[in-house]
């Protein structure tokens, strides 16, 4: 996979979450995503950014335009150094929440992406990577 463009942003406030949505939207438009696909990746970004903020205590996101075998996409990597997720399988379940939300953040973001991976270790933090192809 080739990275065409890369941009890192902090996730430290509710305003950052809005700015990340707008940055992801802009990248999706540049890559020629149709409206539905733009909406899906922006919504997934919003869920994951909120998770990074609320559960990870803030962190970073890397927004990349990538190319693989001639297809182009957006890859988002959210990283925090928060408490980590003790049981990733449980956290991926619809409706599971520790934050008082609906418990759709991780599971919903996975459904809205083509590729999804998560790494988390107690006291080390969490990294979630999603890719949506055009």
């Amino acid at each position, binding site marked *: 996979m080739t990275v065409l463009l890369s941009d890192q942003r902090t996730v430290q406030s509710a305003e950052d*979450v809005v700015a990340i*949505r707008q940055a992801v939207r802009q990248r999706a438009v540049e890559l020629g995503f149709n409206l539905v696909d733009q*909406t899906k990746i922006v919504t997934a970004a919003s869920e994951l950014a*909120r998770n990074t903020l609320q559960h990870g205590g803030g962190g970073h996101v890397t927004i990349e335009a990538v190319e693989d075998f001639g297809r182009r996409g957006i890859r988002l990597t959210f990283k925090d150094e928060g408490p980590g997720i003790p049981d990733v399988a449980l956290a991926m379940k619809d409706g599971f929440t520790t934050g008082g939300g609906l418990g759709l953040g991780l599971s919903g973001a996975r*459904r809205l992406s083509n590729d999804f991976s998560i790494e988390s270790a107690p006291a080390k933090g969490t990294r979630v990577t999603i890719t949506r192809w055009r």
Partner: protein
Amino acid sequence: MERIPILKMGEYLLVTIQVDMHDRLAMTLQDDLTTRIVDARAKGVLIDISALEIVDSFIGRMLADIAAMSRVLDAETVVVGMRPAVAITLVELGLSLSGVRTALNVERGMDLLRERIRERSSE
């Protein structure tokens, strides 16, 4: 402090969300709206989301909470103007917005509100 304006039109309250809301702003709207329903003795709330480019789980929950709270306060809520791409994404995300009445546009939303309020007053 930044706020979403709430307009009063007779027994209805009208909210048009025109900005990409951060979470605190959404919570403020929810608080303001419940207060206004009581103060204005509103019977109906119409929320226009046609300018919203996404509805994620947080905004979705806010809409569902507003609908539930207004029901408890004897008012009906209708959400209008959801973009098709937003609707597709919302369902894939896993949100069905059950309990939230929706209409295609403001005109149909107002019709729906009037109808619901008439039904309730004749019960």
